[in-house]
């Protein structure tokens, strides 16, 4: 029976463990990504990593993409779920409409949004009548990061909504009825019944959104490619740029490795914190 796991184990060894070990090795070299020869450069890639302004910028952006999306998607996901939980006409269509963007490739969503945020795009056409006043929305790195966080949150809020809807349906209505008889108000119902009983759903939704946000790549490639300059790079797009753009595979491996450790730590802290919260609620 254990032999059933052989194909999966082979795949994990060939395409996860071997590349990952190789990545650790490459991060100590100055390999350019294609030539046969390279030198071992010791820790210099890592030293550069901690002093490099572009890496720092990308790291901060990655945290904004990750944490910003997680907050927005959970707040709005829960709000939409509460709004669309009770039965009324048009409820199911509204759920479909909100969930639809989840199906669309994030890259293509980025291109669709390009038509809104470009200099002569839909937003400027709506808000500004003359080209003189138009804002080039993505020409500013910080603004670009905020816009792309919003786009990512807007696109994937449906995932949280669906998870919260499933969670809300799992709460027995008799709890609400009993509390209402005791004269508990709406906010009290939410605070004392809905929110604690949603703990498992919150746990799932937060972890999924956080991992998704920290990996952000496609939308950035579609809209700014990390620009202007290096201002809106995430760690994902920076690895791509460093490997294929600057042909610095050793340094790119080092960024990838450090990003991996950071993301693992962040996910671990979040999962642990949420599990403890969930235990307390029991």
């Amino acid at each position: 029976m254990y032999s059933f796991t052989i194909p999966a184990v082979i795949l994990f060894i060939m395409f996860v463990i071997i590349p990952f070990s190789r990545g650790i090795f490459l991060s100590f070299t100055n390999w350019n990504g294609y030539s046969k020869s390279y030198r071992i450069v010791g820790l210099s890639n890592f030293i550069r990593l901690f002093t490099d302004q572009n890496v720092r910028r990308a790291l901060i952006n990655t945290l904004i993409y990750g944490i910003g999306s997680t907050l927005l998607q959970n707040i709005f996901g829960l709000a939409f779920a509460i709004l669309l939980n009770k039965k009324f006409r048009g409820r199911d269509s509204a759920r479909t409409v909100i969930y639809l963007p989840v199906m669309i490739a994030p890259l293509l969503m980025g291109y669709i949004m390009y038509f809104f945020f470009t200099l002569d795009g839909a937003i400027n056409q709506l808000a500004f009548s003359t080209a003189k006043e138009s804002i080039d929305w993505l020409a500013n790195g910080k603004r670009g990061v905020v816009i792309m966080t919003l786009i990512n949150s807007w696109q994937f809020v449906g995932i949280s909504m669906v998870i919260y809807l499933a969670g809300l349906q799992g709460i027995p209505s008799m709890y609400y009825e009993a509390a209402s008889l005791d004269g508990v108000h709406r906010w009290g119902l939410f605070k004392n019944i809905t929110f604690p009983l949603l703990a498992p759903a919150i746990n799932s939704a937060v972890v999924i959104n956080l991992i998704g946000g920290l990996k952000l790549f496609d939308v950035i490639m579609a809209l700014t490619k990390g620009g202007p300059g290096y201002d809106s790079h995430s760690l994902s797009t920076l690895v791509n740029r460093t490997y294929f753009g600057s042909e610095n595979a050793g340094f790119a491996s080092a960024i990838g490795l450090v990003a991996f450790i950071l993301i693992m730590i962040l996910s671990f802290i979040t999962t642990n914190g949420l599990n403890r919260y969930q235990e307390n609620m029991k």
Partner: protein
Amino acid sequence: MIKKNNIWRYPLVILISIIYLIPIYVLVGISFKPQSDLSSYWKFPSSATLHNFLYAIEKGHIFTSIKNSIIITAFSIFLIVLIGAITSYPLARKNVKFTRFIRNFSLAIMMVPPLSILVPLYATLVDYHGINQYWGLVVTLLTFELPMSIFMFTNFIKAIPTALDEAAQIDGAGPTRTFYQIILPQLKPVTASVIILSGIHCWNDYQFSLYIMQKTSMKTITVAISSFFSQESSNLNAAAAAALIAILPVVIVFLALQQYFIKGMVDSAIK
């Protein structure tokens, strides 16, 4: 109290729905607009044209890339389901160190961002001659989608009573026969969820495809659209048409199989 609730619900729900539909409306409008029509993106074209679509299909190699994406998605889904299901059987039934390790390792892979492994993975695939090959992308997608499949199948098999396995074993069936005759036929609902979720992920993949499928004839739909966008920056109408062609299949499948999509999403998220 509930009746009163619904009155303020409507304007809010309508507003949210409009916000969610506007991008599609604008995209459709632009893609049917002749290039000479410089009116606002918010206005639907007064004379619609199919020219943008024809141009995108011809210059953007859209059909070749759709064919590539179909081949890759089909093979990936097949293997993700098959290997996911057989791996999950021992993981669900035996709670020993080895199976626990495989389960935890598999869960850890779900958290690994592709970026942290892309450089060495690409280098490794170059060594295996897997670049610009269908199998190179298929095994990569398979490896990184397999954990979700294992997670869902394991949870599902755990809920099947072991009495059924035991009865089969008493009748002399080995684990292989028990799996194929007793377990496999019961996996239909979770298989539907795995197919849908992994199918969407494979079809929409950009990060792996961008690295592995660089040759024009091997490009998947996302990679083809992205090169078309950078090459046609002056002809945005055709680029919009190309994007519309690429999202249409997914939207149609989603609208037809909605409940399964949502059920799959919930199954994959909640233990």
